[in-house]
């Protein structure tokens, strides 16, 4: 029941973030949604993810505020045209209709596949301490059973760092020289 309350709060925060005109309030609303997500993780007995979500959320908020606050444009005007809006809403309705049969296939809330014995997680829970010696089963999956995933994640983080460097680097010397020449001609 308390998850429903938290989820309703999250939906309200997301609606405010989507609909408000002021960019700064939108950023702060999405920060509030992130902190409620972290609280929900704590209720759902996932303390590892709650810690990760809190710290990443703080950094996300700082980065987004720096992206919006430095500019002179802080408010949003209007939406897309009527046709685009109706088309997007139609796509959303279609996705909802397509997802409806999927919801009946899901296990009931609170009764995961693990408790029906149909999941590999039972193996991880049983053998985690014996095979890896780590008391935290999440860490033992992350760094022992599925280390390939972690290597891929480190690669993706490195790639995003390289991408940000490449996008935001100074214009090259050649280009800058050309621009100077252009200005001199003017």
């Amino acid at each position, binding site marked *: 029941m308390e998850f429903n309350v938290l989820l309703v709060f999250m939906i309200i925060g997301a609606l405010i973030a989507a609909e408000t005109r002021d960019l700064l309030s939108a950023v702060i609303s999405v920060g509030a949604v992130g902190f409620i997500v972290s609280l929900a993780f704590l209720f759902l007995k996932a303390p590892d993810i709650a810690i990760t979500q809190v710290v990443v959320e703080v950094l996300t908020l700082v980065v987004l505020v720096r992206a919006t606050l430095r500019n002179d444009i802080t408010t949003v005007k209007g939406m897309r045209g009527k046709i685009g809006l109706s088309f997007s809403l139609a796509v959303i309705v279609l996705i909802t209709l397509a997802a409806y049969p999927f919801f009946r296939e899901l296990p009931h809330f609170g009764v995961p596949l693990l408790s029906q014995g149909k999941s590999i997680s039972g193996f991880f829970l049983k053998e985690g301490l014996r095979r890896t010696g780590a008391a935290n089963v999440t860490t033992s999956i992350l760094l*022992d059973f599925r280390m390939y995933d972690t290597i891929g994640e480190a690669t993706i983080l490195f790639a995003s760092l390289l991408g940000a460097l490449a996008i935001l680097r100074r214009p090259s010397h050649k280009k800058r020289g050309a621009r100077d020449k252009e200005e001199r001609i003017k």
Partner: protein
Amino acid sequence: MSEKEGLSVIVKVVTRWIVGFVLLFGLYIVIFGHLTPGGGFPGGVIIAGTFVLLTLAFGKDTPLRKLNSTLASELDSTGAIIFLGIALLGLYFGSFFAENFLTKLPSSYFKLFSAGVIPWANLAIGLKVGASIFMVFIILSVTRVVGLPNGEKKMTRKPTGRRK
């Protein structure tokens, strides 16, 4: 440290008190990742968060004096190489890639030095994630768009303390 840069003096004093504890907490989260909630990812982000806190409170120069961007990228690569090296050592000493090859005695359960290579992999991941996120934040925060008088926008970057 110049008085003009950064936030007010109250924020600076509180930051100076608190930043060591935040760094210590990040290290604790990294080192005890296999026994308690936590691990390399949140710990690394907390370690990067201390430098972000320094940046916000004191301006850009103070954290860059402690950790310039060349050193940060070297730490980033070091973390990645240690992590890959641990995975390859599993191939060498054990039987398959990324195997946990150190011995795991039942008497060492729930102690700090247990779990084979997991604490070392956690340290490498923490180093890598912390350095990467610090680099991303520094890149995003030294870039600044200024309006020129003729209405155009121009992007400038402050120096990031890169070694020549």
